[in-house]
């Protein structure tokens, strides 16, 4: 496969590839003197949803932020170990961080659309990354991304209105559309539904399941039921350690580690 296709069409041929999108080994993260993660080794596979669960403060968000180097902007934060995206060390000096963040998109807990039109929210990324060669192509990308995010029907007649005027659930889908507009390989989601009602949550979950066809998805969630519903793999973090990973079904029916068992059955004091 030639290089140009590899950046834009990688996800489609990914199912056949046994190589994980992310291979992370012995990842440690320090905030100043304080160690937040200790020797986390985890693979993130394409066309799968990996959910990360664990009690508050166990390091889920910290781990997620390592994957697109969002920790770089935190003062005193230091990351060690190896994090390979398609075999490439993302912490190598040669890595273009802006490009990395296009390849590894992120959706946050609180929907955070730009204070711009719906169209501009989605068009922004492709434009700065030079993904569309002309206006028609840009419109097609915006259209397509909104479609994939399941939002198109609701906004197609109001593309020039501010994204901030949408409902919470719609805003979150707009943020997802914005993330997928730059044709990423991996989408990171940090508690994407925690500000949404059950119906909006169900729509996002449905969407996550559809997006899996094209991307590797990592989702941090505090809802065991959500992790059980949307993911194929689950990792349980506790006190900065990745205690257990496994097929989601196994983790939620028959976890191997007592700490996992205690957490998911609500036995942590």
């Amino acid at each position: 496969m030639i290089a140009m296709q590899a950046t834009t069409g990688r996800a489609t041929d990914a199912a056949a590839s046994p190589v994980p999108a992310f291979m992370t080994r012995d990842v440690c993260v320090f905030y100043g003197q304080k160690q937040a993660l200790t020797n986390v080794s985890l693979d993130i596979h394409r066309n799968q949803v990996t959910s990360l669960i664990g009690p508050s403060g166990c390091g889920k968000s910290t781990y997620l932020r390592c994957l697109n180097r969002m920790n770089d902007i935190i003062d005193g934060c230091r990351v060690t170990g190896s994090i390979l995206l398609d075999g490439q060390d993302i912490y190598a000096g040669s890595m273009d961080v802006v490009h990395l963040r296009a390849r590894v998109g992120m959706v946050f807990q609180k929907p955070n659309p730009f204070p711009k039109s719906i169209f501009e929210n989605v068009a922004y990324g492709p434009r700065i990354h030079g993904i569309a060669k002309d206006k028609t192509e840009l419109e097609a990308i915006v259209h397509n991304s909104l479609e994939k995010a399941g939002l198109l029907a609701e906004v197609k007649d109001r593309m020039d209105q501010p994204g901030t005027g949408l409902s919470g659930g719609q805003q979150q889908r707009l943020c997802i559309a914005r993330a997928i507009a730059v044709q990423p390989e991996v989408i990171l989601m940090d508690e994407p539904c925690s500000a949404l009602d059950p119906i909006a949550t169900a729509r996002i979950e449905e969407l996550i399941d559809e997006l899996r066809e094209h991307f590797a998805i990592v989702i941090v969630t505090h809802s065991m039921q959500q992790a059980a519903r949307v993911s194929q793999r689950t990792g349980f973090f506790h006190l900065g350690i990745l205690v257990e990973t496994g097929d989601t079904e196994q983790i939620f029916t028959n976890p191997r580690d007592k700490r996992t068992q205690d957490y998911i059955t609500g036995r942590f004091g």
Partner: protein
Amino acid sequence: MGSEHTVKSFDEELRRLDNMLAEMGGLAEVQLQSALEALIRRDTEKAAEIVANDRRLDHLEAEVDQHTIAMLARRQPMAKDLREIVGALKVASMIERIGDYAKNVAKRTAAIAEMPPVPSAQTVVRLGGLAQQMVKDVLDAYLSRDLDQAKSVRARDRELDALYTSIFRELLTYMMEDPRNISACTHLLFVAKHIERIGDHATNIAEIVHFLVTGEMPADERPRQDESEMTIVTAHTTGGEN
């Protein structure tokens, strides 16, 4: 069952479930014990009592159903809790079936009591004793989540099946020897079959215990073989001529 839930009322609900199952199990044991006694003593009055008492088990099972469904909805249990609750649901239905078979034995007793005794009755009573011990042990294993005891029950089902198969042959032989035995022998054969089925349910419960404790169903093929399905007793082997 290990450490407590952060939400105390969840533990209470699980304890209540255990108590319901203990009550069901105790009742089923008594029903089976009484059914076997009534059979030995040809006591039709007692048999009628057993038939009437079966309703209590049906009610209890319905209560367990209700309680577990409410728990599933309320707690959305995971892992061990999920296994506990689903396990209880299944075990309750198996206990209810055991009760049904005890009731069926009692119903046959009424008919058998009207007829001349058949020599095989003693072997059927022995079969009943084996099944009774299996039921008692498996209920203990369930309530104490004792994997070893569950395994031992599961292993004993083979013995029960073998004895059932030999009873089957024996009764067939009597029937061919003297057609006047057919009626009594047929009833007794049904009794034996009911008891054999009780053993199967005890084995099923043993498998649930395995699942509760380990998170997996037993891997090996179940050691069960009812050979009566393939048993043929031909007339001339018994010396009969027509």
